């Protein structure tokens, strides 16, 4: 590394990136803190209301539904995506015909735009023409048919399934490439000792990719906390707020009720909530590992 004495040169190199980053990524967080204490509809005079916005949020049942749903999405992602992806990667991690084909199709949903996925799945769940109901009827399970997205008790399940579907492939490929780094000599030695496949998986393979599994879990949590597009397009939080997550709640409150102060307060809560969950899980997982 070189010593650079002229501060102007460093400034010239760093400031363009820093300025854009500050103004459009960091400043908005402070803006939301400031406006969260205000009542403002975007046109009339702003009014300082103290903590009233936060109070209102904590007393609103729908807000708590949205918090619960956010947690549900996180749980569905962690306990859906990670185990499925891991099992599939372990299965594919051997000499198999068409391995490349399985990988290609496996990763495909990850690159498709969330909006395309949401609209497609909205049609799959359609009660009259949807793929799912038609399929159930076709295999003689017609009694299981549902108005998947129209029924408050099923809508969240349907949404979570789509979220799992969308990202299994990402972790599948991450695990698959991690598995390729497991040293072959150790596995051969285990073979010579007569270890069964399960024993090899349990005692050699899984421990040697445990670090990647932990990273994937954190990634999965922080990714699923970002859920907004998918639910907004599929249900926009309905029916009867049953699929509301914090971000859709914030959007609906802010732009349909023109309540920028209240929306800012919810933004602050999302920010705090997301960081708290990420920090807690990182700490927990690190302790477990260490």
């Amino acid at each position, binding site marked *: *590394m*070189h*010593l*650079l004495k002229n501060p102007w*040169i*460093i400034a010239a*190199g*760093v400031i*363009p*990136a*820093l300025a*854009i*980053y500050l*103004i*459009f*990524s960091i*400043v*908005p*967080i402070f*803006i*939301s803190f400031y*406006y969260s204490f205000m009542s403002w509809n975007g046109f009339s005079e702003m009014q300082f209301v103290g903590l009233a916005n936060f109070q209102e949020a904590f007393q609103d049942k729908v807000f708590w539904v949205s918090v619960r749903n956010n947690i549900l999405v996180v749980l569905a992602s962690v306990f859906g995506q990670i185990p499925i992806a891991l099992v*599939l990667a372990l*299965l594919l991690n051997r000499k*198999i015909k068409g391995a490349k084909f*399985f*990988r290609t199709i*496996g990763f*495909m949903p990850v*690159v*498709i*735009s969330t*909006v395309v996925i949401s*609209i*497609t799945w*909205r*049609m*799959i769940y*359609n009660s009259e*023409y949807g*793929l799912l109901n038609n399929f159930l009827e076709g295999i003689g399970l017609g009694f299981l048919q549902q108005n998947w997205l129209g029924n408050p008790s099923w809508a969240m399940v349907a949404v979570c399934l789509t979220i799992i*579907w969308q990202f299994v492939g990402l972790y599948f*490929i*991450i695990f698959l490439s991690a598995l390729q780094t497991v040293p072959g000599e150790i596995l051969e030695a285990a073979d010579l000792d007569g270890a069964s496949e399960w024993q090899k998986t349990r005692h050699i393979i899984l421990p040697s990719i445990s670090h*990647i599994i932990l990273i*994937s879990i954190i*990634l999965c949590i*922080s990714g699923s906390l970002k859920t*907004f*597009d998918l639910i*907004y*397009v599929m249900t926009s939080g309905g029916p009867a707020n049953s699929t509301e997550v914090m971000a859709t709640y914030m959007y609906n409150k*802010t732009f349909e009720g023109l309540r*920028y102060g209240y929306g800012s307060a*919810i*933004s*602050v809560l*999302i*920010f705090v909530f*997301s960081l708290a969950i990420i920090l807690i899980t990182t700490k927990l997982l690190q302790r477990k590992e260490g």
Partner: protein
Amino acid sequence: MDKVNVAHDSKVARKRKIFKKSTIYLVLIAFTVVNAYPIFWMIMNSFKSGQEFAFDPFGIPKEWIFSNYVEAWFTANIGTYFFNSLLVGIVALVICIFVGALASYFLSRFQFKGRNLLYGFFVVGLLVPIHATLVPMFILMQKIGFLNTHLALIFPYIAFNLSITIFLLTSFMQSFPKEIEESAIMDGCGVFRIFWSIILPMSRPAIATAVILNFINNWNEFSFALVLINDDALSTLPLGLANFAGQYATNYTGQMAGLTIVLIPTILFYLVMEKQIVNGMTQGAVKG
């Protein structure tokens, strides 16, 4: 007696092996079907008439109809959305890579006060939940008059990709040996000249990864577009498509045609660049 037993054992073992192998194939094929069939279903139905779709939603169309496409193309301004997505996505990407690489160059090749702090400050952006900034971003864009312009998307797209870009490029540039610049400095090259003609070309692999990540993120981005763009003529593909599907809520085959038009380029791009895309997205994810 023993011989028979051994033969029997190996037969059982072989049977077991075949059973195991076929179970594995079965699971993998099931996974593939679950992954691919929804997409296939949608594409096939986009070529059916509304009536045929209602009767037979599963198979290949009996009669291939293109009217859905004509309708989708003309009622939804897909051409315009395409242009907007490309424009916003590419401008944001070029700026992000350029300023990101420049900052990474200083962060990785020079020692100065506050360097680690600055680097940490950039990278912590990976943790900022994007949609927590939707409302304040709207207020900010309104104040500075960017609302409903391409700029309203370009700047947030740059800002939110800078963290991962700087992260990838800094760690890559750090791996170059120190001697690289030394001869150039002897020759009297300026700092920026070294960046442009030595460091930047050498960083090509990492830049390729960053470009792909940036492009996919920008191309698929929906939330900022939803909040900051309120004009059909400025809509990007995800936003335009969502609005179109909302208006054509009951015309399923029309919606499917619109989706397919958007989907095909993505899938082709994916199939052609699969290796780079997969590497970029998994690397970006794991390292970030």
